[in-house]
């Protein structure tokens, strides 16, 4: 650590902003531009991790940026949950930057400079969301994140991108201004503060009925958490180039949504207050409904990115479910899910983009036999899938485990059944992709029946035609990370433990 922890907190936002300026200045030299992107992401990651030790020791470094209203300042305050989110996002930004280079160059995408600039700004906004010290700061960076990702979603600039952009912006801005903001102002008029305080601030200020209404405004105001029926923006955002879908719509943006949900539940309502009033009971059912329905819809999608998008909606509902059950185990499961799902889902998106870059296929039915041509990609896809399903020894198993414990803790048999059914659905929509890739004959070929005992291996080194290295390396790395996270669950739990104990 070079400076005081407060300086490092402020730097988490300043570094990507400076990076964006550097990228814009190196517009004419693509190699320098990409070097700036990579250097910025590495610097940011080192910077975020330098704060970690301070957080582990229990401190909460606070930076007041500017007094925006007489009683409310834009404030950054790092607490364990935000630290976790920032660490995940900044780590994956490095991998994603490598991947972006391979993808954007491999597909000859236009306007790459503005792509990287908007990306860096979106990361800065994500850091702001992660480190926000009060609701107003959270809201401000949340909106910056929406607006900075709009150019990325509409990057292709065609009619389809325009339509996707409309849905994206319409739902995200509509819900945030129409519901999230009134909820914040309501909390402010009730309590006179919007600070995130452990144990919540609403207790004693709001009746059970009012609490339910405010919770409703928050949950549907935070559109990025993609609760049904305001989930449509996420499939719409899939018109974006795949690196955007990978980092932003599997990690930064959607996780900013569920992170905000957890923050609001833990620091504004307070877990105990929610549990005693029972105001969150309806939310459990909405989350359970979203979880199952989105999985079923995912089954019907043949477009790989669309299927992954619906899978994300379903996986996000796990986090909301954890928050709504308002027990410490369930909330821990929700927090772990933010981490574990991030690594699993970004692997899947990386693979989808690698397939697109290598053979320009987007439909799952066209990907038969591709595993023989792209074994690394499909193996990474398998590992990512298994992690999302929640099988050991992969990271995803922990979040499912804690959520199940949470459901058991509150004797919620139906929720336990929902979780089980959902895991089965995950298998049903993810594993066939890999199975088709390896076991079916490639498109246009048929395999002649052979007698038992005379099968020949179809594998040959000469068939392998992977995407460019920069597209294949990242999913391999994140797939390995999924394995590593299985063994790292304990340190992560240690980090987030303080928020669970009152």
């Amino acid at each position, binding site marked *: 650590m070079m400076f005081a922890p407060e300086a490092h907190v402020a730097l988490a936002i300043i570094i990507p902003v400076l990076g964006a300026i550097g990228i814009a200045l190196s517009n004419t030299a693509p190699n320098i531009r990409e070097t700036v992107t990579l250097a910025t992401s590495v610097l940011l990651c080192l910077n975020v991790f330098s704060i970690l030790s301070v957080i582990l020791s229990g401190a909460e470094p606070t930076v007041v940026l*500017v*007094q*925006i*209203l*007489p009683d409310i300042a*834009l404030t950054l305050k790092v607490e364990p949950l935000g630290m976790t989110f920032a660490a995940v996002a900044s780590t994956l930004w490095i991998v994603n930057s490598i991947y972006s280079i391979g993808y954007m160059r491999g597909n000859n995408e236009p306007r790459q400079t503005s792509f990287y600039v908007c990306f860096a700004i979106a990361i800065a906004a994500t850091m702001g969301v992660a480190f926000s010290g009060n609701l*107003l700061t959270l*809201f*401000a960076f949340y*909106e*910056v994140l929406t*607006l900075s990702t709009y150019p990325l979603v*509409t990057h292709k*600039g065609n009619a389809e*991108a*325009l339509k996707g952009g*409309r849905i994206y*912006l*319409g739902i995200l*801005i*509509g819900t945030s*201004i*129409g*519901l999230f*903001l*009134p909820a914040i*102002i*309501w909390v*402010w*008029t009730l309590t006179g503060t919007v600070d995130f305080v452990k144990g919540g601030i609403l207790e004693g200020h709001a009746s059970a009925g009012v609490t339910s209404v405010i919770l409703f405004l928050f949950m549907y105001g935070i559109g990025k958490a993609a609760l049904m029926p305001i989930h449509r923006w996420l499939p719409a955002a899939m018109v974006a180039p795949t690196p955007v879908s990978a980092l932003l719509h599997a990690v930064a943006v959607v996780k900013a949504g569920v992170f905000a949900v957890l923050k609001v539940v833990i620091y504004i309502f307070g877990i105990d207050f929610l549990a005693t009033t029972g105001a969150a009971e309806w939310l459990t059912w909405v989350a359970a409904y979203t979880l199952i329905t989105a999985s079923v819809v995912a089954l019907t999608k043949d477009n790989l990115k669309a299927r992954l998008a619906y899978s994300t909606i379903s996986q996000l509902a796990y986090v909301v479910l954890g928050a709504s059950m308002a027990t410490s185990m369930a909330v821990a499961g929700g927090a772990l899910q933010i981490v574990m799902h991030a690594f699993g889902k970004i692997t899947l998106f990386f693979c989808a983009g690698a397939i697109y870059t290598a053979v320009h296929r987007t439909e799952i039915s066209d990907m038969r036999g591709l595993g023989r041509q792209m074994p690394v990609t499909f193996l990474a896809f398998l590992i990512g899938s298994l992690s999302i399903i929640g099988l050991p020894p992969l990271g995803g198993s922990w979040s499912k485990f804690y959520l199940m414990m949470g459901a058991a803790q509150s004797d919620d048999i139906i929720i336990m059944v929902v979780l089980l059914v959902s895991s089965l659905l995950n298998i049903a929509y993810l594993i066939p992709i890999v199975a088709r890739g390896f076991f079916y004959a490639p498109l246009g070929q048929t395999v002649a029946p052979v007698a038992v005992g005379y099968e020949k291996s179809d594998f040959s080194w000469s068939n392998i035609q992977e995407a460019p290295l920069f597209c294949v390396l990242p999913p391999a790395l994140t797939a390995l990370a999924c394995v590593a996270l299985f063994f790292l669950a304990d340190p992560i739990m240690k980090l987030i433990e303080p928020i669970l104990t009152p």
Partner: protein
Amino acid sequence: MPNMFALSSQYPVLVIVLPLLSAPLCALLRGPIFPWALTTAMSALAFFFSVELLAAAAAGGPLSYEIGGWAAPWGIEYVVDPLSGFMLVIISGISTGVLLFARESIAKEVPGHQLGLFFSAYLLALTGMLGICITGDAFNVFVFLEIMSLSSYILIAMGARNDRRALTAAFQYLIIGTVGATFYLIGVGLIYMMTGTLNMADIASRFADIEGTRPILAAVGFIVIGLSIKLALFPFHVWLPNAYTYAPSIVTAFFAGTATKVSIYLLIRFIFTIFGPDYSFGGVDLADILLPLAVLGFLSMSMVAIFQTNLKRLLAYSSVAQLGYIVLGIALASEAGLTAALLHIFNHAIVKTGLFLSVGCMFFAAGSVYLKDLHGIGKRMPITTFGFVLGGLGLIGVPLTPGFISKWYLVVAALEKGSVLGYSLVAALMISSLLAVIYIWRVVEVAYFRDPPEGAAKGEASLSLLVPTWIFILGSFYFGIDTTLNVGFAKAAAAFLMGGA
């Protein structure tokens, strides 16, 4: 007692007299530079005086200046209190910023031999606005109101070179504006009949004795309706979209930030200082009229803005909607509501001026402000268009823009009101903001997702246009992030008005 002969003691009169006397001088000047330079210098001086006056009023309480040494209430009194000082700064500041933009822009839109006359009309309009705010005499207000109105008819008609419809727009404004001003005069006449005085403070002190009488009731009606016409409150707004659409770019930018705001200032002055809030919202309950009109206004006008094909007209309808927010703040009849209204006067002025200036840049380069001619303008003029988008975010009320700050205060004031009414007002405000998203995004889509027409000129507006535009755009972000100044002065003025009642 400050030294009578010190220059600073003469600031209240200088701020009016300098632009007023420069106007005929300006009419004599020829060439493209001199009239503009004189006007800009006078406006900048007025801005300097205004800032000094506001600072003095904020530090040492209201200043009073007796014109010609005739003591009030017989003579005309100029008063600088936190409210009028705040208005003076807004008006002269916007005017100066717009003038920096004007040199190149107006040379393209107004014939060279008329520039002297154009700028003298501009100076008169500026004088009128400043005068309305500073004077403490109800009849003197009418005089300045006419100076401002007559010169603004001229300024709007100057757009005729580009589009002949400017003439009918100016004529329409003349007819409706005259009706409004006449209503105001009738109201003042009735008050004079009942009180025998025209000095505002004097009227206020005698108002309690006569407030129940019928002539006063009629006077309140005439004044409120007359001012509502002048401030373009829905449904008296029909003159505004035409006037803003066909006037030269800088005139639109100047008026959007100031002209209607002056009438709002008068409405606030009459409601809170002269009638007193107890009478305005107890005796006659103006909120019953103003509140529904404000809500209907911002909802319907935001809706209408969505369907416009002319960018200036779109922003004009948006202005009517934003005026609805301000009137809503007044109609909430609380200190929080009044703070929100005053704050939004400032915030909307800076945002809308920035927007109209960036539209001015587009007009300068593309020669049209119809959306169909602005296809792909984001690729043709990236800097200007990005400025427009940032300004549009301010209009929507995205955090870190001043629009957000106004909305915050307005929603807090509405929630303070409580009950079903308060909650439905919050809902209406949010719906209106979302409508603003739609009309701004229509422009964004035209600007970035349509291909530029064949052979369209590519290239940015020159620096003399871009720099003032971006001063307003960046300024708006400054006042959206560090709100000490604007919120501070709005709060002080609101407290002064409520406390002084």
